[in-house]
């Protein structure tokens, strides 16, 4: 187990800089998720931690030791790849044992470790099989097993669940989380899926264009996004953003109506008012907040709730209704979100205006 620290980490490919001097400190035993759209530099960052990519500037420390010039094998890390990367010409047992390739343990100790890992991951019955005879989920477990046997300083996961179907993905998510609880090994997990990030992370690192936008617990990011990108990236469906012009004592929405805004949010003339679909519900506006009316265009019935898309002055706004209350398409509907659930952003800088 170890801390992982990135200090002004830079990656350049020729003239193109893909990681712009990022700083990040991962605590011992922490589960950190790097999340962002493709091309944001998250996988490159992970590969630099692993030693699979050379770094162009800055410093990486694992367990306090600078590893900039160390080979991957000298960093004592284990990595799980998106395509599993389990060797097709070896049995499950040999694949798992490969994690101990450099280990000086005796043969019987190695076997014992392999069996232990297999038992933890429910692979005991499959040890003699070849990877081609395994399902996607089982293959990913073998890859995790290979990473586990070594007792590494840190686990690195590079989008390990993206090749699994939705149901398996949920299951593996829980398994990885449970494993982390049991082993307590520092883990860095890369994904572009915000649900994975929210459900698994102790802390989430939101990245965009090779820069870190925000680091925080899932709830901190959900409640206090620092900018529009994070606000829309975290949370599903994405946050509604309504343009408004600030005036004395409030703001006028472009699509009609007005909202009271806190003084901290009234520092800019043009702002965007954010409301999460879960907060925007059909109700009468008896408390101050945001009220929008429009025609129901799409209804998504999820059972536990119903997502309602309404059209108002050419803009689509998503709200939610209780599960058993299903509005009719074409119906006029008024949605309301209380003032304390609203977010405010500067239109020009896209930064959040008032901490909540």
């Amino acid at each position, binding site marked *: 187990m170890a801390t992982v620290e990135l200090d002004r980490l830079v990656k350049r490919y020729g003239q193109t800089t893909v990681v712009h001097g990022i700083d990040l400190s991962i605590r011992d035993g922490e589960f950190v998720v790097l999340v962002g759209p493709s091309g944001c530099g998250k996988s490159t960052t992970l590969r630099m931690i*692993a*030693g*699979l990519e050379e770094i162009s500037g800055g410093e990486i420390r694992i367990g306090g030791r600078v590893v900039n010039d160390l*080979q*991957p*094998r000298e960093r004592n*890390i*284990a*990595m799980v*790849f*998106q*395509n*599993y*990367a*389990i*060797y*097709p*010409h070896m049995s499950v047992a040999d694949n798992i044992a*490969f*994690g101990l*390739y*450099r280990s000086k343990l005796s043969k019987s100790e190695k076997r014992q470790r392999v069996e232990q890992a297999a038992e933890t991951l429910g692979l005991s019955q499959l040890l003699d099989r070849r990877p081609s005879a395994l399902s996607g989920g089982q293959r990913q477990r073998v*890859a995790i097993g*290979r990473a586990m046997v070594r007792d590494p300083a840190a686990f690195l996961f590079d989008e390990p669940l993206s090749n699994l179907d939705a149901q398996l993905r949920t299951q593996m998510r829980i398994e990885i989380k449970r494993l982390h609880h049991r082993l307590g090994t520092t883990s860095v997990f890369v994904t572009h899926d915000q649900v994975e990030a929210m459900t698994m992370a102790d802390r989430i690192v939101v990245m965009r264009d090779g820069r870190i936008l925000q680091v925080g617990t899932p709830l901190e990011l959900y409640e206090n996004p620092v900018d529009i990108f994070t606000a829309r990236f975290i949370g599903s469906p994405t946050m509604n953003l309504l343009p408004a012009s600030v005036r004395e004592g409030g703001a006028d929405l472009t699509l009609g109506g007005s909202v009271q805004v806190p003084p901290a949010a009234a520092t800019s003339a043009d702002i965007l008012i954010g409301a999460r679909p879960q907060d925007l519900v059909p109700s009468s506006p008896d408390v101050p907040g945001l009220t929008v009316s429009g025609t129901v265009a799409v209804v998504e019935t999820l059972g536990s709730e119903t997502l309602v898309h309404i059209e108002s002055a050419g803009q689509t706004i998503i709200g939610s209704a209780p599960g058993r209350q299903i509005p009719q398409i074409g119906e006029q509907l008024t949605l309301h979100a209380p003032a304390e659930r609203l977010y405010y952003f500067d239109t020009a800088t896209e930064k959040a205006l008032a901490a909540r």
Partner: protein
Amino acid sequence: MKAAASSSSLAMPKIRPSRILAWTLLFIGGVIMVTPLLFMLSTSLKDASQVYDLRVIPEAPTLDNYIEILGDGRFTRWLINSTIVAMIVTLSNVFFDSLVGYTLAKFRFRGRYIVFIAILSTLMIPTEMLVLPWYLMASQFGWLDSYWGIMFPGMMTAFGTFLMKQFFEGVPDDFLEAARIDGLNEFTIWWKIAMPLVTPALSALAIFTFLGNWTAFFWPLIVTTSAELYTLPVGLSSFAVEQSIQWEKIMTGASIATLPTLIIFLFLQRYIVRGVMLAGLKG
């Protein structure tokens, strides 16, 4: 009568004219290819007096030629020479072609493309043109009339390198990176991870190289002068120059020499077909 006619039309599915044409062509092709083999086998079972009797089935078949050839120390020697040469050259190609192919496919280094093009361009030069420089080289280094002299031009081939490079490009980098993290060095990654993943290509390469060297005639003929260093094809040809042409001996030797080729084809057809498909074509 009517019932009989309809049942026969049921039993005999309609044969398309294109099928008939294809079968005819295949049959003619088969005859053209098999006839010399049959004659070779048939002649090997005849005595010297019947050689010019063109009957396929010999009047008085005899195994005397086989007994004589196999009892002749020279022939056994040539067989051993051919085996040694073909085996070593094959092993060398499997090792070096794949090592170079892997490097070109999986490592980024300055001049990589130039090296690849240089290797590939040697494919455009016909063997006949290379024989003279090879000979001069062998002569300068004192390799004439030696095993090494026979083998050195074929120890690594551009074709094999190209074939292996194409194959290694299909091996996902994740495997190699996982191995790098698991603690293997670059050579071990190639040997333990990458090589097993390209077994079909290795088999194809090994088969082509073995057969090519087993049947090689031109270069071994030029580079060897002493009979104990002849490979089988060169040795067999010497039956034609010493006394008169001993066709029955040549054909017996050729029949024996064909055996390994036939065995390889029978057992490894699958790999050969796959190898030909993957490599474009290689005669």
